[in-house]
């Protein structure tokens, strides 16, 4: 092993440590976790995972999260596609200001919007539904998707559009048959980031739900239950939240680099 590879290896170990700790904890019993320091589980147990997959209050947390995250990703990308096309292809009054304003939405802390969303959705009887969380997350995901997609669309020359129109493609046909396949990497990257940000967002998801649409993150963050501390269970739940993200990353891994190269991610 070369000398210079020591530092990266140390760094990666440092990054992986909390994840390792989480995974190790999920296989320990709560007594062992509270009992003292151990590098490996002394008694391996799958009890925590079993609880999650059998207890509806746990597994519904996952289903709820996946539902609203998926709805949000679909809405965000669908709405952002035409918006990004407009920003990349047309000049209109205030286009640059509008584009920047979209970005500022990305910068606003979710806490600012928690109260108005709560009030509004309660009045509209949307409180505690999947669509409520999905819509609330559009607040920061649509601007992000527009920003990413605009970058990818800007890389496609306008001459492609012109050639297609001259060749006889109507606009909808051009958009779905020519343009979308051309920027599919961008759609993948945008969808990935919408998915991730919606998946990890906790505050709005927690505020806007009570029972029926309660996300896994909310279930997970109650540290104590009637049965006392269930640290092994919480660790198992945490481990499971990593999986959807890992799966999505696997699908877009080749495109992410492209997104970074455009400076949009």
């Amino acid at each position, binding site marked *: 092993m070369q000398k210079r590879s020591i530092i990266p290896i140390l760094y990666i170990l440092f990054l992986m440590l909390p994840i390792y700790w989480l995974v190790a904890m999920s296989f320990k019993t709560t007594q062992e976790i509270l009992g003292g320091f151990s590098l490996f589980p002394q008694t391996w147990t799958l009890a925590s995972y079993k609880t999650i997959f059998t207890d509806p209050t746990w597994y519904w947390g996952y289903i709820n999260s996946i539902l609203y995250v998926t709805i949000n990703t679909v809405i965000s990308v669908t709405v952002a596609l035409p918006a990004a096309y407009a920003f990349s292809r047309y000049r209109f009054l205030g286009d640059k200001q509008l584009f920047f304003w979209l970005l500022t939405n990305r910068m606003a802390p979710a806490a600012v919007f928690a109260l108005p969303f709560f009030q509004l959705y309660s009045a509209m009887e949307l409180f505690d539904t999947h669509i409520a969380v999905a819509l609330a997350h559009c607040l920061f995901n649509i601007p992000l998707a527009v920003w990413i997609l605009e970058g990818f669309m800007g890389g496609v*020359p306008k001459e492609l559009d*012109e050639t297609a129109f*001259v060749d006889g*493609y*109507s606009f909808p046909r051009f958009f779905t048959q020519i343009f979308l396949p*051309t920027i599919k990497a961008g759609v993948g990257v945008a969808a990935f980031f919408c998915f991730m940000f919606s998946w990890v967002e906790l505050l709005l998801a927690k505020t806007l739900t009570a029972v029926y649409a309660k996300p896994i993150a909310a279930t997970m963050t109650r540290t104590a239950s009637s049965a006392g501390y269930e640290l092994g269970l919480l660790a198992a739940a945490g481990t499971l939240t990593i999986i959807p993200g890992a799966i999505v990353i696997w699908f877009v891994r080749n495109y992410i680099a492209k997104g970074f190269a455009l400076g949009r991610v």
Partner: protein
Amino acid sequence: MALELKAVTKRVGQVTHIKETSLALEPGRFNVLLGETGSGKTSLIKLMAGLDRVASGQILMDGQDVTGMSPQKRNISLVHQFFVNYPHMTVFDNIASPLRVAGMAKSEIQGRVEAAADVLQLRPMLQRRPHELSGGQQQRTALARAIAKESTAVFLDEPLANLDYKLREELRDQLPDLFAGRGAIVVYATSEPAEALMLGGKTALMQDGHVTQFGPTAEIYRKPNTLTSARVFSDPPINSAPVTKTGDRMELGHGVGWSVTGTAAGLRDGAYTVAVRPNYVSPVRSHDAHVPMTGVVQITELSGSESTAHFRMGTDTWVSLAPGVHPYRVGEDHQFFMDPAHCFYFAPDGALVA
């Protein structure tokens, strides 16, 4: 069948991109739009293709008003300077795409695509994707798409500009044959005078968003109607300088003068501008009538069998282009001989008078 522009203009905001332009383009020969970058060639093509809206005026195709018609309905083809193909489709699908959109039968599509691919030597590449092709092959794919569609009008917007020298020559030689006998109106935009001359047909000279002259290419080259037209259609740039006519003498100053005959002799005495192409200014005197002029050599270029020399006489810079290699020394005086029989004379307003 013809494509006609009637007093067409285009404005973006307060800026006029195309000044009132009228043109009648016929099928069966190349219609070259010749002008520098930014002279409005692409803007004019976009208007004809329906990709931009005219501010005023009319566009007629086969006598039918197509001014407000969308490009989809115009039955036209367009090849850009950049190689534009559909990146996710194979070469076959690229060539077939306009035919598929038009709803043509599969068997006929197959036949047309293969015919176009044969003409452009794309047969072995039909199953490849555009990014797996060289620049020349990509542009040939775009041309094949235009040919297979068999449209009424084909617009070629500097299609060879981004190709390297060898490929450009090769493809340029093929182009006239490619469209011969198809009955399409071919509009070819270029910034190179030599290209216009090689493609023949008709040429429209463009400058600052309007057509300064339109007619058979060779005729326009021989008889530019204004000083501007002469400048657009000359490479290296045409020499021009103020002259004063007194009787049958033209005086250039710096002791250079000559006698004129014919139309030029009939001009009223006064100030004119003389213009002469660099190939009529030679370091070798081949005829007694040639006018000697001496200037300080500034720059010399040797391009194979031809020598170019830029020399300064007073405040004017002149260019000489002559066959053979000549012993110029930069910074020193050299004598050149101008052929007065090939001089153009322009009135102060720029119009050709002799």
